């Protein structure tokens, strides 16, 4: 389980969370996770939209803010009690949610090279759950065309419209498996920080 306050290097795919039951510490099943919502600035998870159980269930009008999460386990997301749910508009305003879905978006470098399309978003446990990369179906530009690879992201993620922009250097830190991806993210972010520091000194 990933408690929100505990430092951890666990990596998971955001889409694995869809459908995961939301259960109170009292053992009551409240809902299922529908969408994962993150802040582009910093990549922190803002919360989750919810739906009721069942194949033809509808989206719920309440949502789960991240601060109300007790822990994210392999089989369920635990919350203290249902009183901590908030209106869905507070977590994901309708218009922003329609435009902000990153799945199937194109990933472009800031130098204009297309790297692929987003299949999933990689989250890392830590002092909160945060977005650290995309799983993409690689384009020919990466030399692994058609394969699924992981590409690291900087602290601030550009999310708007149908194109997601990443620094060109991200292509040097592509990983083919999730287990080695954490190290690639750390190296990539260190490189970006060093670049910023050098830029500030000059």
């Amino acid at each position, binding site marked *: 389980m990933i408690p929100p306050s505990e430092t951890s290097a666990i990596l998971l795919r955001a889409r694995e969370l*869809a459908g995961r039951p939301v259960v109170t510490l009292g053992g009551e099943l409240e809902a299922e996770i*529908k969408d994962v919502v993150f802040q582009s600035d910093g990549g922190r998870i803002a919360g989750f939209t919810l739906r009721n159980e069942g194949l033809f269930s509808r989206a719920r009008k309440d949502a789960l803010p991240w601060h109300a999460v007790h822990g994210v386990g392999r089989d369920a997301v635990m919350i203290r009690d249902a009183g901590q749910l908030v209106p869905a508009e507070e977590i994901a305003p309708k218009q922003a949610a329609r435009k902000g879905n990153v799945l199937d978006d194109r990933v472009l470098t800031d130098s204009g090279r297309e790297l692929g399309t987003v299949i999933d978003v990689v989250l890392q446990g830590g002092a909160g759950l945060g977005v650290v990369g995309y799983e993409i179906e690689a384009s020919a530009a990466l030399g692994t065309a058609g394969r699924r690879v992981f590409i690291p992201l900087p602290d601030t993620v550009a*999310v708007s419209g149908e194109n997601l922009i990443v620094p060109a250097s991200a292509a040097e830190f592509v990983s083919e498996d999730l287990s080695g991806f954490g190290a690639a993210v750390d190296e990539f972010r260190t490189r970006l920080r060093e670049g910023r520091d050098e830029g500030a000194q000059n």
Partner: protein
Amino acid sequence: MDWWVWVILAVIVLVVLLALAVVVQRKRRRGRVIGLGGGGE
């Protein structure tokens, strides 16, 4: 047409509609990953 032809056609249409509904619903249940605020194209 005989009455049983209409019955078979109706059953086929119902099955197709049901299959479509299940496909659409499954797609909806995949969930989205939504990024809010900041950044730009």
